[in-house]
C-alpha cells in the first residue's frame, strides 16, 4: 500500500525566511509525485509533477526536488501570500493509475 508522510505538520515563517517542506513516500513503482497548494475553503491548486529521482522543477519562489524516498518543496524568500496548506501526493504503479495517495499536508503561515 502506498504511503505518504509530510513534515512538519505546521510551519510558521517570517517573510523572507527560506525553508523546506518534506514529503516521504513508499510506493511500489512511482508513476508520479505531485505537489498541490490549497487555500482555506478552496480546491487544491496544482503546482508540480515529478516523475523520477533527480528531477527538479521551479515556479516563482517554489522549487520541488525528488529522490527515491522523498521530495522537498523549497520556499525561497516567502511572502505572506504563500500562506496555505501544501499537499503532496503519489501515484504508484501497484494500483490504478487514477488513484492519488495524499499526505496530510503542511500548513504554512508566512508573517510580516
Amino acid at each position, binding site marked *: 500500500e502506498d504511503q505518504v508522510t509530510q513534515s512538519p505538520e505546521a510551519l510558521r515563517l517570517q517573510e523572507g525566511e527560506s525553508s523546506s517542506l518534506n514529503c516521504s513516500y513508499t510506493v511500489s513503482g512511482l508513476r508520479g*509525485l505531485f505537489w498541490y497548494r490549497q487555500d482555506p475553503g478552496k480546491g*487544491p491548486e496544482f503546482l508540480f509533477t515529478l*516523475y523520477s529521482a533527480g528531477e527538479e522543477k521551479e515556479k516563482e519562489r517554489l522549487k520541488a526536488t525528488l529522490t527515491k524516498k522523498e521530495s522537498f518543496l523549497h520556499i525561497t524568500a516567502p511572502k505572506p501570500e504563500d500562506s496555505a496548506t501544501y499537499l503532496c501526493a503519489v*501515484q504508484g504503479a501497484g494500483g490504478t*493509475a*487514477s*488513484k492519488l495517495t495524499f499526505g496530510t499536508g503542511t500548513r504554512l503561515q508566512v508573517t510580516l
Partner: protein
Amino acid sequence: DTEVTQTPKHLVMGMTNKKSLKCEQHMGHRAMYWYKQKAKKPPELMFVYSYEKLSINESVPSRFSPECPNSSLLNLHLHALQPEDSALYLCASSQAPLEGQGVVLKSGNTIYFGEGSWLTVV
C-alpha cells in the same frame, strides 16, 4: 488553461432532500473524479470515471450516486444524507490512463481539481 468548474459553491440540504452537485471541464480529459474532504484532512477519493464509465467506487454509500452524462460533465446526486456527510466535495479531471486498452501509461496523470462545493447537511 486548466479549469474545472463546480456548481453550486455552497449547498445546505436537509436529510430528506435530493440535490445534485455538478462539474464541468473543457480540457479534453477523459477521466473525472469525485473527492470528499473534511476539515484539516486530505482529499479522499470517492469515484473515478474513465471514458464515461465508472471505473472506481471506493465503497461509497449508495446515498451518493455519480453520473457522467458525457466526457465534459460529471454529477453527484445526493439523497438521504447524514450530517456527517457535510464536507467539501471536489471534482477533478485528468487525462485517462489507457489501462483498459492494454496499455499502462508510465508517467503519472496530473489530476486537476475544481474549487469545490461546500455541502452542509442539517
